[in-house]
């Protein structure tokens, strides 16, 4: 049965291929894109190759030329996430592989080297190649060997290249992909910045974030269940300190690729609209887009102008991948605000749906009641505090009080909290706004006042102090009442 299906698929493929052959041979449209490859090229240059997010400068020569590309395959162990290592197979020592830039009509002389220390045979399939296997057949090499082949860059476009040695999926899953740009001879219109971003997935034996060296997991790859979906080869490779940087008013062109091996990317930049997209990296352009699909083994070119300052988040809008698996890169836009485009926050108040205990930060303090509250034991306070914490605090400060770096301060062994004379009572009663320093890290955010009674505040704080390593001690409802009445 299986072999029947296999044969059937081949027949279908043959029929399709024949059909395409017939169509293209008589289609006049095809000629428009076909280059006169009988025309000789003049001169030769050695291609400048770059690692993401950098893009090589365009070739300035006015005529087509021979471009010599030297690419070395290196198997090496590198960081996949903080505390997580992976043995990558790379085109040029990094993931994604080196960015290659040529022009339509150039003759590319390709030299592929398999480092002698490598363990495995490799090759390269460049989607920009017109020829068997995209060069794969001509380039299979054992460790310590080199292969050379040449091709004419017939079609314009942004193309993926990858290793195509068996098992192909595993070679790609281990990092063997990159981009080759074939731009028009006269070049693309100038922009202020060009960046190289490539999405891909990793299938590891351990779950996301599990420390130590992780191995490739074939079963997860077959099931298409990646633990990591990343931009530029590792979690945080192009975000935070490594973010791309531009100024307000500058234009950006993104060369976006998707190495796969399995997932299709819903590529989106949070805080921008693509003014122009070369759909799937080809010559068709679309305008005013929010999200563009980047197929596995495909690409897109996206252009936009940065009108206002802030941080743009480049994500796969299949959004759990972005926030839970690493599919996020950043562009930091610095410069002056432009309130004609975006005002920034004009007003902040907390929305108070019926029945919620959250209230506006500006609404002042809850009036105290005069009734006498019965005090509780430490155990009772901890039990009640845990529930109240999970209902009111956990969403931001997290279940274990770790907070979220850069956004919500941690409560675990918090020097800020421990230094408060009221043990934190006022923060809960009145909320907190503006810059604070917690355990050496700056936070500038807003915490709304929480509408809880004295008994509840006492329980929450008892829980926070005892459970998150801020010193022991029972906080009494009477203390809360005392602070509430102080002002």
């Amino acid at each position, binding site marked *: 049965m299986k072999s029947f299906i296999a044969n059937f698929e081949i027949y279908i493929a043959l029929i399709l291929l024949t059909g395409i052959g017939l169509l293209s041979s008589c289609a006049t449209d095809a000629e428009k894109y076909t280059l006169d490859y009988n025309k000789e090229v003049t001169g030769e240059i050695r291609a400048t190759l770059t690692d993401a997010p950098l893009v090589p400068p365009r070739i300035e020569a006015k005529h087509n030329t021979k471009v010599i590309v030297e690419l070395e395959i290196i198997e090496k*162990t590198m960081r996949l996430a903080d505390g997580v290592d992976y043995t990558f197979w790379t085109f040029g020592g990094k993931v994604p592989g080196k960015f290659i830039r040529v022009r339509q009509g150039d003759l590319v002389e390709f030299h592929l080297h398999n480092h*002698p220390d490598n363990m495995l045979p490799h090759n390269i*399939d460049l989607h920009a190649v017109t020829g068997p296997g995209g060069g794969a*057949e001509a380039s299979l090499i054992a460790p310590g060997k080199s292969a050379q082949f040449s091709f004419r860059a017939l079609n314009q476009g942004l193309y993926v290249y990858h290793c195509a040695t068996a098992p192909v999926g595993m070679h790609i899953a281990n990092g063997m992909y990159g981009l080759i740009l074939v731009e028009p001879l006269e070049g693309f219109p100038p922009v202020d910045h060009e960046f190289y971003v490539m999405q891909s997935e990793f299938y590891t034996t351990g779950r996301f974030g599990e420390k130590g060296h992780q*191995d*490739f997991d074939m079963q997860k790859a077959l099931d298409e269940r990646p633990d990591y979906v990343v931009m530029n080869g590792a979690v945080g490779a192009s975000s935070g300190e490594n973010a791309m940087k531009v100024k307000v008013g500058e234009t950006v062109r993104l060369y976006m690729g998707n190495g796969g091996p399995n997932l299709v990317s819903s590529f989106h930049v949070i805080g921008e609209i693509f003014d122009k997209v070369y759909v799937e990296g080809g010559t068709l352009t679309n305008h005013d887009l929010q999200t563009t699909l980047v197929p596995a083994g495909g690409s897109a070119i996206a252009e936009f102008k940065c009108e206002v300052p802030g941080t743009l988040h480049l994500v796969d809008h299949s959004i759990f991948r972005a926030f839970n698996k690493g599919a996020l890169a950043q562009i930091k836009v610095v410069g002056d605000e432009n309130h004609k485009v975006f005002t920034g926050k004009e007003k902040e108040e907390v929305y108070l749906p019926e029945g919620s205990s959250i209230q506006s930060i500006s609404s002042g303090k809850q009036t105290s009641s005069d009734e006498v509250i019965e005090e509780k034991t430490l155990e009772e306070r901890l039990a009640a505090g845990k529930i109240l914490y999970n209902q009111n605090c956990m969403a931001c400060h997290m279940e274990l009080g770790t907070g979220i770096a850069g956004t919500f301060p941690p409560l675990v062994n918090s020097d800020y909290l421990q230094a408060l004379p009221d043990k934190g009572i006022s923060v809960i009663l009145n909320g907190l706004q503006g810059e604070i320093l917690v355990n050496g890290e700056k936070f500038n955010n807003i915490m709304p006042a929480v509408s809880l009674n004295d008994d509840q505040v006492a329980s929450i704080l008892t829980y926070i102090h005892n459970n998150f390593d801020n010193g022991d001690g029972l906080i009494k409802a009477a203390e809360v009442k005392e602070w509430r009445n102080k002002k």
Partner: protein
Amino acid sequence: MLFKKELAFLVMLCFVVSSVSSQNKGMVLIPSGSYKPFIKGKVDEIQVDSFWIDEKSVTNAEFSTFVDANPSWSREEIKRLFADEDYLSHWATDLFNQDSFLVGNAPVVNVSWFAAKAYCEWQGKRLPMLSEWEYAASALPQGSVDSSSLQEIIANWYSRRTLSENDTVPHYKNEFGIWDMHGKIWEWVYDFNSVQSNEDSRNMEETPEGLFCGSASLNASDASDYSTFIRFAFRGSLKGHFTVRKLGFRCVKTK
């Protein structure tokens, strides 16, 4: 010169005599049996006759004895037809010239198929057939209960967590009683290019019957057996005169 030749002959003669008398010293008898082939063909099982196999892969020290006795296989004199320029290149390094016992005991690498074959024949042995090698290598590590332990050895090697080819410490012995069929170096087989993954690894064009087409994995009996895929792809990337830094060999003998 004449003396040297005579000496070499004498050494050979002694060796032949001694190996016969010592009943295949350093070799293990693999019982006849069968294994499930990786490449789907007409047969579900491949039968393998009983044969002797070297307990360990051939070491630098052993190979240097061969080269001393057969100077035409030395680094200096070997013909390019039989080995590329990296032939025994690791012998030129300081590490090896220290003449240390340790490196001498490490498996010899950077040897071509021709050289490996010549060595085995010099010993009255031969290179294993692919089916013999695969059958011998399919045995699990001694004492293990399932195939995951073997997969782990291979995975650790791929991810470079085991030591290099200069490692002289044996890693594991399999149920047949032979050492390190996986996890240390690749090994030549006699018919390394008979079951060849296509260079593109994906082509589905007519391949001679029974041959392997790396690709689409349509011909593999277990498409998820990536370590075997890699082994077949590796063999497919070789030519007889190639030498590779992690490729050595061991010999076998028909029973």
